[in-house]
């Protein structure tokens, strides 16, 4: 009798389990879905997770190629959701009732929701945030305080940055302009781009190589071939473990702040698993594990409490209060702006 009950109970458990279990195809950044977190999630919910590592541009390109298919959850930056959504329609609106809002830092949640709203529907909630600024070998390039100092003779031939929009934005701020304020005025923005273009072409002899991937830059800095670079905060903190001279410095004109989000692709097939993943990883303990793996802090309320002290110390050293107040958060990128930036970047790349 007992065994029958047990058997039927377990059969019931199995069948209900089977109906719910989905495969979550996650399109994300390196470090955002560490192996141990995936194991805990799979054990708790029964869903399985397949991770594809990518970056902002590739995520959009991949989703555009399939009209928003092939993945069930993506993690683009908050400023890069509204534009591609309007242009290509690659995401579906979030059902906010399925997301536990109490786990988020309220200000960050509201800001992200506002920036990812298209036609009254919200398309993104925040996950991981961080900044880009200067990664310096302070023993050799201690004089570099701002992006424009990368063009000084003191670091000639020892500089690296990316040929991406972040570089244009950073240099514009360092040159005393406000590119974000000009986003809605194409002519004014082109004017800013032209000035930045001239500066970056003038600066070109100083550059050793334009870096493409994070590992490439780390190699350059670790070997000492590059002493001053424009990069993400985590890159600097990770290198700091290997060489105490290398660290992340917030430039005087302000570090550029980004927030990576959760967005559900238009033709995602595992929404239940996607919402389950969002709610799971936003728990403070899990968020701390992700911070440990990715090196960046999350939008999880209380998620920074369990982060290890070494990382916290590095963070506080790079970001005194006035540097935090000075962070320039990316506003929504309007459609069309990136075409102007692209042409500028091409011209810088081609200039001799």
């Amino acid at each position, binding site marked *: 009798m007992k065994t029958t009950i047990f058997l039927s109970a377990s059969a019931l458990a199995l069948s209900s389990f089977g109906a719910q279990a989905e495969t979550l195809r996650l399109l994300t950044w390196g470090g955002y879905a560490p192996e141990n977190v995936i194991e805990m999630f799979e054990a708790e919910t029964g869903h399985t997770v397949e991770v594809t590592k990518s970056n902002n541009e590739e995520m959009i390109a991949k989703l555009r190629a399939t009209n928003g298919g092939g993945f069930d959850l993506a993690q683009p930056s908050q400023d890069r959701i509204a534009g591609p959504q309007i242009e290509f329609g690659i995401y579906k609106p979030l059902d906010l009732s399925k997301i536990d809002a109490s786990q988020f830092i309220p200000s960050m949640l509201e800001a992200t929701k506002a920036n990812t709203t298209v036609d009254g529907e919200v398309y993104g909630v925040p996950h991981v945030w961080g900044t880009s600024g200067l990664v310096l070998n302070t023993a050799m390039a201690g004089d570099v305080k701002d992006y424009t100092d990368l063009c000084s003779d003191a670091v000639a031939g020892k500089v690296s940055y990316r040929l991406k929009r972040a570089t244009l934005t950073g240099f514009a701020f360092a040159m005393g302009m406000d590119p974000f304020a000009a986003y809605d005025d194409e002519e004014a923005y082109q004017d800013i781009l032209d000035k930045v273009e001239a500066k970056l072409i003038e600066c070109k002899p100083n550059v050793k*190589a334009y870096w493409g991937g994070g590992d490439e830059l780390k190699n350059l800095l670790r070997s000492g071939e590059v002493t001053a670079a424009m990069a993400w905060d985590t890159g600097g903190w990770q290198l700091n473990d290997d060489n105490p001279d290398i660290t992340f410095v917030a430039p005087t004109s302000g570090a550029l702040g980004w927030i990576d989000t959760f967005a559900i692709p238009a033709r995602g097939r595992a929404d239940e698993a996607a919402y389950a993943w969002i709610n799971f990883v936003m728990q403070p303990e899990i968020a701390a594990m992700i911070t440990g793996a990715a090196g960046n802090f999350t939008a999880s309320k209380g998620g920074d409490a369990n982060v290890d002290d070494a990382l916290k110390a590095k963070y506080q050293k790079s970001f005194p209060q006035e540097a935090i107040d000075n962070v320039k958060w990316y506003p929504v990128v309007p459609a069309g702006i990136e075409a102007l930036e692209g042409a500028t970047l091409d011209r810088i790349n081609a200039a001799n």
Partner: protein
Amino acid sequence: MGTDRTRLGFWLLIAPLAVWLLALIVLPHVGMFLVSLRERVGVREYETSLANYAVFFNEPLYWNTFARTAYMSISATALTLLIGFPIAYYIAKLTRGRTKTTLFLMCLIPFWVSELVRTFGWMILLRETGIFSGLLQYLGLVGGPVEMLYNDAAIMTGLVYTSMLFMVVPLVTTLDSLDDSLIEAGYDLGASGFAILREIVIPHAMPGIVSGCIVVFMLSLGNYLTPILLGGKDSLWFTGLIYDQFITRFNWELGSAFGFLLLGLSSLIVFLGLKLSGQSLGKTMAQT
């Protein structure tokens, strides 16, 4: 009855090739061509026009990059031929049996690892803190670290290395078929080594040279990894531009137009090369 059966056999044999060509080459190109004719006029609004092609001709940056890519690829092809010809001649004419197989295999071995690994190998050798720089410093030939990566010479090295096999193989095949007695007859008639090379060896090897050059040129022109990884801040490559348009600019329309221009212009260069050297594609194919 018999003809029906041969006809059926013909269609069955041709079917895999036809499916391959249609599904993987013709259809994607038709799709890409249609995309290249779309001009974005507003959010989700497109018009049919040749605007994307006009961009290429109006913006000096793009055709300069194409000219540079073509020029570098032609140089790489010439260099590969210069280095590959003596190797192929040695393998085909001056070695026999086991040595021949071994030498041939040695040309092949680098291709057992992927192109990415090969290119990274060059990066390790050439970089400022790399092996060559370290060796030169150790020997006391240079005072400080030397940077050999991130310039056009590094790209050229990588391209020649990557395409050497595709030059050597057709050359060995054609040179193999050259009867040794012809060369001996040349010497008997009092010709110099250079005259024999010019009058006998090269004319005979011409089909191999042409097909090798076409393959190497096309491979170099369409190479993406080597120029991107080994090239420096000034080293634009046309395939890199296409990648940028598709992936980082989301501008498929311009990217497709560039793709077609690359196809058309490279075909034109090959055609001109054949005309200048007095060869025809059919002759080349028949003899190699």
